[in-house]
């Protein structure tokens, strides 16, 4: 099958590409860029894409797919569908499943589950066995089976000695250690610590609980030389720590979630548990610092921390409800609304944060837009105005605080692995 992307703006910072052109895809491969003939148009499905952008496929490097273990909340398949609908052609999934992704079998199980899908799924394996922080997981074996990074996400690697070993051992194959930065001796709370938590009578989690671990991890990366990636950075001082570390040439990278650059802890005032996440929503000062960090390159990429939860679990009393919200289907819209529309990021930078940098951090091939290359593309309408409707989500869960929010910017189609997701359907191309 032949597809033509007509008059689309092709964007790829890696190729310094920014041009309006026609693009012909045949059998999942880019066949022509420009110079399309009458016959090409007659024999292809033509997508009219005036004022739309087309870039290397977007990639979300922080997604919880819940399989194996909580298939009632999400599966590899439903999560991949949500990713495609949200504009992504690849995701990396975190290891806090049941069992944890700490054995080669589980890595292979997830790879197997995702092998026929448009969306590529790359497992991130646990850094320590059972994410208990005590003994290293079989990292080499996990790497060989297909793990692209190591993380105990959900929890921090508490013991600095274990972190040192994990970081040192990961140098064997160049994968990053992804850290959920939280000093648990300081974080026994349900929301950000500050004026709002005092007002709401909820125990607080201070910024410093994150900052201390970010600082420790940066120092460890400087000492050992391995790669540390800071997950879901949320605090102003942490952003500054990463900025200074990068200036010194330390190998540290960072991601930010859409909720941390969009919402503040004031949202918790309704006690709606869809505003409960870890790290918690912080203050406007922190939001501003994250936006600046994204703008100046301190924060490398946007990742959603997509965390599906069953309705009955999320509908609990605030202090008992689990942390986390859905992200895959609102991430692009929030980034365009909050960052591109507000002139914090250019569209080119947006592509960098969504398509290029996450793959570079995980040592995954960055797709190019050139003749002969496999088509791995995201097509976005950066000015479409739409209303979020969780009842239409592909995800199995519904825990999003963004339901009914008006957003600007939406995915039109994604193409990868000889498949296209367009107009709410998957088709083989």
């Amino acid at each position, binding site marked *: 099958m032949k597809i033509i992307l007509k008059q689309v703006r092709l964007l790829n910072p890696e190729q310094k590409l920014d041009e309006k052109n026609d693009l012909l895809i045949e059998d999942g491969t880019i066949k022509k860029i420009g110079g399309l003939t009458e016959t090409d148009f007659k024999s292809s499905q033509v997508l009219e894409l005036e004022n739309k952008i087309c870039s290397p496929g977007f990639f979300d490097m922080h997604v919880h797919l819940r399989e194996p273990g909580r298939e009632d909340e999400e599966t590899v398949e439903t999560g991949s569908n949500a990713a495609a609908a949200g504009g992504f052609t690849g995701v990396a999934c975190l290891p806090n499943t049941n069992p944890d992704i700490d054995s080669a079998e589980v890595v292979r199980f997830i790879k197997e589950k995702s092998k026929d899908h448009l969306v590529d799924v790359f497992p991130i394996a646990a850094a320590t066995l059972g994410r208990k922080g005590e003994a290293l997981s079989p990292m080499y074996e996990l790497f060989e089976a297909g793990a692209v990074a190591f993380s105990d996400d959900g929890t921090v690697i508490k013991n600095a000695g274990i972190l040192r070993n994990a970081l040192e051992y990961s140098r064997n194959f160049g994968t990053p250690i992804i850290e959920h930065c939280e000093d648990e001796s300081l974080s026994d709370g349900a929301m950000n610590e500050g004026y709002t938590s005092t007002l709401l009578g909820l125990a607080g989690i201070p910024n410093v609980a994150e900052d201390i671990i970010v600082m420790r991890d940066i120092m460890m990366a400087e000492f050992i030389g391995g790669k540390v990636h800071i997950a879901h950075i949320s605090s102003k001082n942490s952003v500054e720590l990463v900025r200074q570390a990068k200036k010194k040439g330390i190998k540290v990278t960072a991601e930010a979630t859409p909720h941390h650059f969009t919402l503040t802890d004031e949202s918790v005032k309704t006690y709606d548990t869809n505003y409960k996440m870890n790290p918690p929503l912080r203050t406007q000062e922190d939001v501003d610092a994250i936006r600046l960090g994204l703008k100046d390159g301190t924060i490398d990429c946007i990742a959603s921390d997509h965390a599906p939860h069953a309705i009955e679990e999320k509908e609990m*009393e605030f*202090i008992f409800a689990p942390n986390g919200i859905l992200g895959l289907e609102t991430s692009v819209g929030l980034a365009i609304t909050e960052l591109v529309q507000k002139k914090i990021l250019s569209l080119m930078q947006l592509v960098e944060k969504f398509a290029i940098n996450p793959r570079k951090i995980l040592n995954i091939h960055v797709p190019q837009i050139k003749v002969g290359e496999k088509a791995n593309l995201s097509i976005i309408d950066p000015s479409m105005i739409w209303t979020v409707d969780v009842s239409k989500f592909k995800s199995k869960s519904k825990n999003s605080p963004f339901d009914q929010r008006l957003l600007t910017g939406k995915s039109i189609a994604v193409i990868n692995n000889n498949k296209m997701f367009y107009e709410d359907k998957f088709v083989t191309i």
Partner: protein
Amino acid sequence: MSLSNRHLLGLHGVPKEDIQLILETARTFREVLERPIKKVPTLQGKTIVNLFYENSTRTRISFELAQKRLSADTINFSTSTSSAKKGETFKDTVRNIEAMKVDMIVVRHQSAGVPQYLTKISKANIINAGDGIHEHPTQGLLDMYSIREKFGRLEGLKVCIVGDVAHSRVALSNIFGLKTMGAEVSVCGPATMIPLGIESLGVKVYHRIDEAMAKNEVLNVLRIQLERDAGKRIPSLREYHKFFGITSDRIEKHNREIVILHPGPINRGVELSSEVADGPYQVILDQVTNGVAVRMAVLYLLGTMH
């Protein structure tokens, strides 16, 4: 005259007129409580559920008595296990209760925000009887009632809340209510027990009890709650008593009238010495009686609203 809100979730944002109305109404019920027949038929035919997810015999008995005095039908639902552990969700429990056509729900829960949540899933009037470390509005009201009874006013009075302010639901309700009524509110306690940035609520902070006693006319002394991990924030109860405990020596040193309130139950020898707990300065037992009158007022005003 009626209240501006059909629920009592907290004292934050409750207008002065509402507080005044509750305190005035409580005064008439206080008189009823002195009569030989203490019962009035005001809430006859109304069904009230006391939904207690946390053990609090005192508060529950006070509410129950208030309900009986108003001739309401009362159902008690008490459990110390959270819905998280029980299997049935909180929402299901409430839906069940709702199906029994209740008019009011008095709720006590470990989690802040539960009363707010109840207003979304139930049609009943909701009264917060303490949610986590958030608010305990009827306690705040009865404290204000007791202070007003003693001084004849609240406006301009200097009131200090002493103890583990950071982990107290009584503190916030007192701060919000008293400030609305024009009192000057301060807090005093070891720094580990004072929330960061509490000054932004418009209260002064003391870390020395003698200074707080020199500057205030009323001390509302909170219970040190070991069950809330208070032990982690102070080296010992002995040290707490030595530096923050209210003793008659301390009171006499100031040579002026200081009124002592305490929400009970008292840890004698910790936040109050026994002489103070039984002495002439305290109004603790008045607080208990006033508590019934204030709760009658709240139940009456909400239960007869349209």
